[in-house]
């Protein structure tokens, strides 16, 4: 036999090395964990989403939500269309709830203070510790909590009663003066329900009802239906009366920039004009007669004629509605001011028409700053043995001057139920992290007759050993030998809903009704109609309507307003919201002080110059942002910035306005005084660049967001020649060799002449979108919805400063006419800008590798895997809607925040271009479902994330080749135009409907 390798050995070696190579090639380090489901969880089909109805827990509005879960993880929140609060709309904070659920800064488990640091312990140990402390405290228990559903509030009540102590409720955004005014004037201790939709003329005395006030998503829907022009060419009018234009203010047709704090006077003077003889004013006739327009004109800063004119239109355009002054306007006479507005509504006959106080079904939260003040006093005096805080962060959100931190710190045993670190938890001895609202049972009763179950939508996120506070209270009580009924929250909710089942008179057995309610997410119980008419009642308290006193003698009145992104600061640790451009200023991440350009010029300030703002109560340093929408004698600062200890994203960004405010409760309602001080503004000589996404606030004579005057509607021909359609510019091109075919993109234009490629052959739809700018309020909910749906990363302040924000949508905000010096018309244009999916897309021919290409159904596809990153497409995009992955931004997203990623959408790599896809994954999902069910895709079946979220119902999506589709019908409108189409013939698939104004439109658009 010869030496060397035998045939068999050779084959053995070959086989072994081949197998080895195969193993090396395929294996991952975690290969042993790749086990399939042995027992598959019920209701989970891999690749198919499961939806659960629940309730949004981010503010007191209590919007109904649907949560989309994939493989047991919540990935997207949408509004529940069946829920009567917002009818399917959801605001940016609601979407960002997912970043609270998956927030990497949540506590890993119960924590106990061990000297300066915290040590994690087990729930048994923690609950034992709590029970022992409650025993030894012997009745000196203080439970300070924020928003709570009815069942949780019941549980808290029984807990506090059993343990002996007090329960104090406090919600930073609650409008206590309004509730108190409703009680005084109308005899109902409830927050009235404002029906914007039914009104034809709305006056807001500073209430930010589209930003944060009461129920912004629901208000947004009603407001858009009121103010959007209807098919008959009629539209409701909105006048904003206040010193600063909030997002709400920017949507007004007219701005009356009154002196801060004089809302009540204006309302009374208007009521005086309306009820000249005192008729209808009931017990307030004397008050009205003392406040005629000429008397109050001086104090309000506007002329008597303006007030008279406003009053006359208020009655002439019935039904009307007046709201305000809202949370930012809570001053020392806030209850009186609210009452004045209610009186105005009453004399104009709006009570019962657009303003409802019917139904006493709502349990009455007994919260106010005055009660917190008392609790602070009790803690300071040492009469509190155990202080427990749930759902609020008073060490941050109360004025520094309140002394909460010191008083709380002095309590013997402090318990925090915060699920993630906050300034209050940082002082606590024991932290019992609460489950997120998406993980726990609860319920909600946002307004009389509306009930919803807060159902857990997924198993608790395993990274965090949390426990719902209701369950903790129940087990702590049980451990202390005090039985509070059912052992857990789920049973408590069921038990409570058992009573509701009886009250509702439903015919179904309870179990069926309960399941149906869980599925629907909401139950409406008819209200018992009281025969008693709601009339004005004599005041049982002393009211003064004069402009309130302000502390200090600074040059500017300080207006502190709840942030549309962060509320009072509880949402500040959510990168989606931090990077969401503020709807007004378009600034991200940091805080800014709004100051009128004239005032800024007087101080020699430019955008980003840092100033010291000092009130008698404190001072802080913040960069200024010049804003024509604030009076020259007022400066405004948003809440929500300047956290010291609130997680990795919030900490270090911005300033906390609470440092400047007095710690004072309004006399009548006990609400916190926010408009209470004057401040001095001193330049420091330093500068900080503001991370804004705004390149210019002027349209520069380009017809990007044109408008049409209401009076000109119906005169489409002249209008079209001026601003919209294809004017003289086409003539030049028609002489040449290549003749682009102008088209309006309407159903009859398909198939497009001259389009041979991507030519929308008969069997393909042409997806298109219509956006009604007369409805869009600029609230930016769509921006976060898009980010959530499409795995759009956030990039951080430094990257935004470099101009690298990744949003697939942006809400452009252009000033057309903003004048803070006197009452007059206001014209600010909002324009949601997203990929226009052009027929003649400039991005497509320039891509060297076909990464940008045209699908047969008209989409501008973007193949991420094919993109090499030349960025030519972005350079050539006139709309600048393409965004580039300068880094692998998703790398910085920590566990478990990446659990939120939508598995239907690719996570993009470093170096590729991306942009709006018209939610192509949803289109394909609908098409696949239609194929499986052997049918066509219905009109309205494909709903992109932005449209779904839009509270204003401004966005319509569908197949424009189908002339019966909604998008085609909406696009067949004289207000229709397409941005830049008239002179670069891009033929976008997004048609906009012009904003309609009451005043003459001065901008002729493109000349």
């Amino acid at each position, binding site marked *: 036999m010869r030496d060397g390798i035998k045939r068999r050995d050779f084959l053995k070696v070959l086989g072994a090395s081949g197998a080895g190579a195969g193993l090396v090639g395929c294996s991952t380090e975690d290969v042993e964990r790749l086990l399939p489901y042995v027992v598959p969880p019920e209701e989970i089909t891999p690749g198919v989403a499961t939806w659960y109805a629940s309730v949004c827990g981010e503010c007191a509005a209590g919007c109904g939500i649907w949560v989309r879960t994939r493989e047991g993880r919540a990935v997207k929140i949408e509004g529940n269309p069946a829920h009567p609060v917002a009818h399917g709309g959801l605001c940016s904070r609601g979407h960002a709830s997912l970043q609270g659920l998956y927030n990497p800064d949540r506590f890993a488990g119960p924590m106990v203070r061990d000297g300066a640091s915290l040590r994690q312990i087990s729930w048994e140990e923690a609950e034992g510790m709590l029970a022992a402390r409650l025993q030894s405290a012997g009745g000196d228990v203080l439970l300070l909590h924020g928003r709570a559903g009815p069942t949780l509030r019941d549980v808290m009540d029984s807990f506090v009663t059993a343990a002996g102590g007090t329960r104090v409720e406090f919600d930073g955004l609650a409008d206590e003066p309004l509730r108190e005014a409703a009680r005084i004037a109308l005899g109902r201790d409830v927050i009235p329900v404002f029906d914007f939709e039914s009104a034809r003329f709305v006056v807001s005395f500073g209430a930010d009802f589209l930003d944060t006030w009461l129920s912004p998503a629901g208000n947004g829907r009603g407001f858009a239906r009121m103010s959007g022009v209807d098919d008959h060419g009629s539209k409701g009018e909105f006048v904003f009366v206040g010193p600063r234009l909030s997002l709400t203010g920017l949507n007004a047709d007219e701005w009356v920039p009154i002196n801060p704090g004089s809302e009540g006077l204006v309302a009374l003077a208007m009521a005086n004009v309306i009820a000249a003889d005192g008729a209808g004013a009931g017990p307030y006739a004397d008050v009205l007669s003392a406040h005629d327009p000429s008397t109050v004109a001086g104090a309000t800063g506007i002329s008597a004629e303006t007030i008279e004119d406003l009053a006359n239109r208020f009655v002439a355009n019935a039904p009307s509605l007046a709201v305000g002054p809202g949370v930012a306007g809570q001053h020392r006479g806030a209850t009186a001011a609210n009452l004045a507005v209610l009186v105005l509504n009453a004399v104009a006959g709006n009570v019962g028409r657009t303003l409802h106080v019917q139904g006493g079904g709502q349990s009455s939260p007994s919260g106010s700053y005055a009660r917190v003040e008392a609790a602070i006093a009790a803690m300071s005096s040492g009469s509190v043995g155990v202080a427990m805080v749930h759902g609020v962060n008073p060490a941050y959100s109360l004025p520094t001057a309140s002394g909460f931190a010191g008083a709380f710190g002095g309590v013997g045993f402090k318990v925090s139920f915060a699920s993630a670190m906050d300034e209050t938890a940082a002082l606590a001895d024991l932290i019992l992290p609460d489950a997120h609202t998406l993980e726990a049972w609860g319920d909600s009763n946002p307004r009389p007759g509306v009930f919803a179950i807060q159902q857990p939508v997924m198993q608790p996120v395993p990274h965090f050993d949390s426990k719902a506070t209701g369950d903790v209270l129940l087990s702590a009580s049980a451990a202390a030998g005090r039985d509070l009924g059912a052992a857990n929250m789920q049973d408590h909710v069921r038990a409570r809903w058992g009573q509701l089942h009886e009250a509702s008179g439903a015919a179904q057995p309870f179990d069926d009704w309960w399941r149906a309610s869980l599925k629907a997410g909401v139950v409406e119980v008819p209200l018992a109609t009281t025969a008693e008419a709601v009339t004005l009642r004599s005041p049982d308290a002393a009211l003064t309507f004069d402009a309130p006193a302000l502390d200090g003698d600074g040059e500017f009145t300080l207006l502190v307003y709840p942030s549309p992104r962060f509320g009072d600061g509880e949402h500040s640790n959510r990168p989606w919201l931090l990077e969401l451009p503020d709807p007004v200023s378009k600034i991200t991440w940091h805080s800014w002080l709004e100051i009128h350009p004239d005032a800024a010029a007087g101080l020699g300030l430019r955008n980003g110059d840092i100033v010291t703002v000092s009130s008698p109560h404190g001072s802080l340093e913040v960069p200024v942002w010049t804003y024509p929408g604030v009076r020259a004698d007022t400066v405004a600062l948003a809440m929500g910035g300047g956290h010291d200890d609130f997680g990795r994203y919030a900490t270090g960004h911005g300033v906390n306005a609470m440092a400047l405010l007095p710690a004072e409760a309004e006399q009548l309602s006990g609400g916190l005084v926010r408009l209470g001080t004057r401040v001095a503004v001193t330049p420091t000589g330093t500068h900080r660049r503001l991370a804004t996404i705004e390149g210019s606030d002027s349209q520069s004579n*380009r017809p990007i967001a044109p408008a049409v005057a209401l009076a000109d509607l119906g005169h489409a021909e002249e209008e079209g020649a001026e601003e919209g359609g294809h004017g003289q510019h086409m003539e030049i091109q028609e002489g040449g060799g290549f003749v682009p075919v102008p088209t309006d993109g309407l159903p009859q234009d398909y198939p497009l002449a001259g389009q041979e490629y991507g030519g929308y052959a008969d069997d393909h739809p042409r997806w298109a979108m219509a956006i009604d700018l007369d409805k869009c309020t600029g609230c930016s909910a769509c921006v976060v919805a898009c980010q959530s749906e499409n795995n759009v990363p956030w990039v951080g302040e430094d990257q935004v400063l470099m101009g*690298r924000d990744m949003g697939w949508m*942006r809400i452009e905000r252009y000033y057309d006419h903003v004048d803070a010096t006197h009452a007059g018309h206001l014209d600010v244009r909002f324009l949601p*800008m997203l990929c226009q999916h052009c027929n003649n897309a400039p991005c497509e021919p320039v891509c060297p*590798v076909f990464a940008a290409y045209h699908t047969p159904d008209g989409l501008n596809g973007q193949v991420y895997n094919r993109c090499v*990153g030349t*960025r030519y497409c972005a*350079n050539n995009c006139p709309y600048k809607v393409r965004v580039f992955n300068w*880094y692998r931004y998703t790398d910085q997203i920590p566990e478990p925040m990446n659990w939120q990623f939508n598995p239907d959408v690719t996570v993009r790599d470093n*170096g590729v271009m991306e942009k709006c896809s018209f939610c192509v994954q949803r289109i394909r999902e609908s098409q696949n479902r239609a194929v499986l069910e052997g049918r066509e895709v219905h009109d309205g079946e494909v709903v992109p994330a932005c449209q779904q979220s839009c509270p204003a119902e401004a966005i319509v999506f569908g197949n424009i080749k189908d002339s019966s589709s909604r998008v085609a019908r909406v696009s067949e409108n004289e207000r229709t135009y397409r941005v830049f189409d008239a002179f670069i013939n891009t033929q976008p698939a997004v048609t906009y409907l012009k904003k309609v104004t009451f005043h003459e439109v001065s901008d002729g658009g493109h000349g």
Partner: protein
Amino acid sequence: MALATEQPRGALSHPDVQSYAEVNRDILAILGRPGLGWWALFSVAAAGVLLFFGSWGWQIYAGIGVSGLNSPIGWGVYITCFVFWVGIAHSGTLISAILFLFRAPFRQSIYRAAEAMTVFAVMTAGLFPLVHLGRVWHAYWLIPYPNSRFLWPNFRSPLVWDVFAVTTYFTVSAVFFYLGTIPDLAAARDAATGLRKKLYQVTALGWRGTDREWHHFGKAYIFLAALATPLVLSVHSVVSWDFAMSIVPGWHATIFAPYFVAGAIFSGVGMVITLVVPLRRVFHLEHYLTVKHFDAMAKLCLLTSMIVFYAYVTEYFMAWYSGEEVERAAFWHRAFGHYWWANWIMLICNGMVPQMLWFKRVRHSIPALFVISIFINIGMWFERFVIFVTSLHHEYEPFAWGVYRPSLTEMGILVGSFCWFGFWFLLFTRILPPVAIAELKEVLPPPLRGRTREGAAS
């Protein structure tokens, strides 16, 4: 006879060069042992090459976010450098090919350096499209190659045209350059010893200087010259279409192709002056590179400067005349907006400073020409910066306007690219005869038996 009044050959261009032997001696002396100065420069260049590849490597590792680019300014320093270096390359071909075809007598002394400059500038330019890619590891997708997925590049995209234009240009100019050096390599071979000799032996392809070889060489050279000539026009036209084919206000202009070609020649001649002045001084080539050569280059600069300036004026005029708001605003912002300074650097360096070349005294002053050529280099770099960056920063959508500031990484790559170019050029001066020996001899009086001691051509 008429010949009696003729000057001896070569007298016009090189009055001080006497003999073939002198040429060999002087030029080949450059290839000798380098001095300290060369080593110092070479060290700087080599360090710069490390800087270039270090910065680029860092960018590949970390992401192209380490540049200052953003939305809306997707192209900045990198594309500026790309077009700048492609432009530099052009005058080399112009001098070597076009002037060869036109038998311009001043080209012999400078064309070798100019041609080397062309090759190295294309080598530099060709890096930048790679540097600016988000995913450079997929750059080969721009090349049409058969593949199982039947994926081809998009032939409608000017960037694909660019790939063809630049690779063609590099191939042709490199071949042309190499072909022209063969007789000189043979001359160097004959003078060299040791390793160098081996190198030249291989690269000279066994050149013996026979009549047949010269015959073929001449034919090949003229064919390649003819082939390279249209490239001078086409390559930069294609490069200009990267911009002109877009709809960006400030880019979308029909004048771009001639405008860019003129600019390329302008910048290229400027760069030739910048390179040749020190070369002449260090290697004592005053006899070979005479004032007359510089005078001719200066005139070419003056001409192209005026063409370029005319193009600037045309752009502004057309922006105004078009009546387009967007176009007008773009040019208003070019002159008076955020980047006004770049625009004025461009106008002064390219439009005003070269006007001094009207004066013969300036054209005949080597230091003055050197200074002017530096201005031209700066101006032409900023010309591209102005076109790309200012047009992008102020486009259609006012809300999306933005500004861009180059990052340190970009600066490192910018500086590194000059060093990369210098690195090759310095090597060139020591390895290849920087002045064409053979062609110089063509214009010198031939060695005749009675007039020379050596009696034979090298």
